[in-house]
């Protein structure tokens, strides 16, 4: 729909949270939030640990983002640390990119699919499953031979049967444990109750005793005094285990960025009433001029950020590799972090080519990150920008490559 007749300037793609993943049905081509990472080649998958505190980092999101003119499957994995002491710090986040050669696809020219975009979409409806894809169709079974190959599919990914070679390898490595959905009790080290609570790792213990540094990391009282705002802004000191945390997995629904909606009924009424009472005269308004209107709080960056996000409410992720729009920021990008300069972030660390803005995570994602092991908000951040290598450099034997990220906090 968006491709029909569009010029080279593409839209920003937005990610919205979708249904919960119920039967662990995902592979490296699924866009999802939370859960366990589905590596392209899972044998050499790294176990990411926080650079600041060493605890294991759960997966925040996994994005399948193959590039045009590329034979590779390409997936990005973003991990973060959930310890309250590590919130809002760039070094507690990491982004990995993993690529896998698509064996069935040879190098291709950019397929001129714009004209046949609708064909592809209509044909692709014949997937043979009438109910939710959640039921049935395991990874290895070929899709129905009757369903036609989508015409003009970009990249021409063939039907399921061709994937058997790849998927067979993956399936045995995929060890998707069933989610432990019940409340953790008793002996489970992740339990919030029971005798195992205080036998935790040194990480939590350090936080508890270190009073002058962690001045704002106070003990989390079970009944939060709701009228005490300072307490609400303090990072809580829940006892968070350093391993085994996982965010509740859900799919991501991809959509285009829509232009702003029309006037609501209320605004139309206001306009009508105003017009009735006065006449819109064509003359100047008695000396009034154009004035730049900034909001009372004075933060123009935040205002622009929030207004853009609210035009398409519910978005949690913006994918902007194919778009010429700059990313939404809370502060200007040249803002020097305390101990890092932006210079170090300007080139790909592997191949030295320039970086390109790929995607950003929005603070609205914080509302959707839930974890059974943690009460309340697991992690907080402003926005996380991922800059990836413009050439998407890769060598075939590797497991993952790290991408550059920039973390911005919201300004108070």
């Amino acid at each position, binding site marked *: 729909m968006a491709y029909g007749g569009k010029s080279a300037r593409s839209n920003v793609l937005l990610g919205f949270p979708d249904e919960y993943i119920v039967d662990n049905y995902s592979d490296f081509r699924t866009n999802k939030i939370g859960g366990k990472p589905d590596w392209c080649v899972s044998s050499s998958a790294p176990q990411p640990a926080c650079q600041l505190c060493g605890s294991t980092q759960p997966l925040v999101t996994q*994005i399948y983002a*193959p590039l045009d003119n590329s034979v590779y499957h390409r997936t990005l994995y973003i991990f973060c640390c959930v310890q309250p002491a590590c919130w*809002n710090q760039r070094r507690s986040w990491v982004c990995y990119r993993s690529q896998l050669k698509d064996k069935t696809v040879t190098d291709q020219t950019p397929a001129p699919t714009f004209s046949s975009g609708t064909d592809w979409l209509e044909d692709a409806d014949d997937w043979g499953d009438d109910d939710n894809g959640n039921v049935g169709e395991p990874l290895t079974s070929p899709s129905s031979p009757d369903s036609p190959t989508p015409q003009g599919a970009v990249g021409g*990914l063939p039907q399921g049967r061709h994937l058997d070679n790849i998927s067979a390898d993956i399936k045995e490595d995929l060890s998707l444990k069933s989610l432990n959905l019940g409340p953790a009790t008793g002996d489970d080290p992740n339990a919030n109750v029971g005798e195992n609570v205080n036998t935790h790792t040194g990480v939590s213990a350090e936080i508890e005793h270190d009073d002058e540094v962690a001045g704002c990391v106070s003990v989390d009282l079970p009944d939060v005094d709701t009228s005490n705002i300072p307490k609400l802004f303090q990072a809580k000191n829940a006892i968070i285990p350093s391993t085994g945390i996982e965010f509740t997995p859900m799919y991501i629904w991809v959509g285009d960025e829509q232009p702003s909606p029309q006037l609501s009924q209320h605004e139309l009424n206001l306009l009508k009433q105003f017009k009735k009472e006065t006449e819109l005269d064509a003359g100047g*308004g008695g000396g009034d001029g154009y004035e730049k209107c900034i909001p009372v709080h004075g933060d123009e960056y935040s205002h622009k950020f929030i207004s853009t996000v609210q035009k398409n409410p519910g978005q949690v992720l913006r994918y902007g590799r194919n778009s010429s729009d700059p990313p939404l920021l809370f502060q200007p990008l040249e803002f020097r972090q*305390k101990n890092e300069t932006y210079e170090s972030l300007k080139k790909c660390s592997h191949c030295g080519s320039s970086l390109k803005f790929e995607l950003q995570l929005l603070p609205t994602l914080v*509302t959707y990150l839930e974890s059974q092991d943690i009460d309340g908000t697991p992690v907080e951040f402003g926005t996380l920008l991922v800059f990836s290598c413009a050439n998407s450099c890769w060598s075939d034997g590797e497991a993952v490559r790290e991408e550059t990220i920039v973390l911005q906090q919201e300004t108070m």
Partner: protein
Amino acid sequence: MSGREGGGGGTRGGFGRGRGRGGGRGGAKRGQRRRVDEKEWVPVTKLGRLVREDKIKSIEQIYLFSLPIKEHQIIDKLLPDSLKDDVMKIMPVQKQTSAGQRTRFKAVVVIGDSDGHVGLGVKCAKEVATAIRGAIVLAKLSIVPVRRGYWGARLGDPHTVPAKVSGKCGSVNTRLIPAPRGTGLIAAPVPRKLLALAGIEDIYMKSTGQTRTLANFVKATFYAIEKTYCFLTPDFWPQTKFLNAPFQEFSDYLQKPQEKKVPVAAS
């Protein structure tokens, strides 16, 4: 896909090329809307999250700590039904360019609940619709509390400003003077709407300057009303115990030395 769904077709597919390819596994039926309703407010700021979870129950708590309100839905949630907004004026303003004149529309909107909260928003945009919508949002973001007091005896509810206050914007000076009960709003028609929405029942007002510039006139009145809570009256003479502002805590947290590493947990 176009026309088949309401707000624009999307898929579960991968980003980048081939949207819809490969990601259909585990996906919903084509054309099904996503789980989260569009109309629902998903907060962006920390304050917004606290408000949405009902941890902050009244707007006065936010005023107490002077926290910046960056999302207008916060105001919608804390003052749900009582707010009334009003478009004061929409005027075209022009700018001379080499290609002729470029006209934009400036909308001035006042909003208030007639009980101590007012806001004023001015927005300039190329279309009237955008200007009105932007001005309503800016008005909600600028809501301030209004202090009312008595002219004479302290009988009944406060009905007028507690002291003489003045405001200035551009060349317009406005001065609000307390009036006895039953006087009504003795003011020019333009600021009268603003004063009514603020919940002030009786006032004398004196204005000077080029009051025909409506935006400046209204803004000057708004600044005067804002100052009612800045005025030190004898009620405030006893010492106030100040709580630590959350920003203070926040900045302590921000200033936590980044070099200090929490020791690695024994693995």
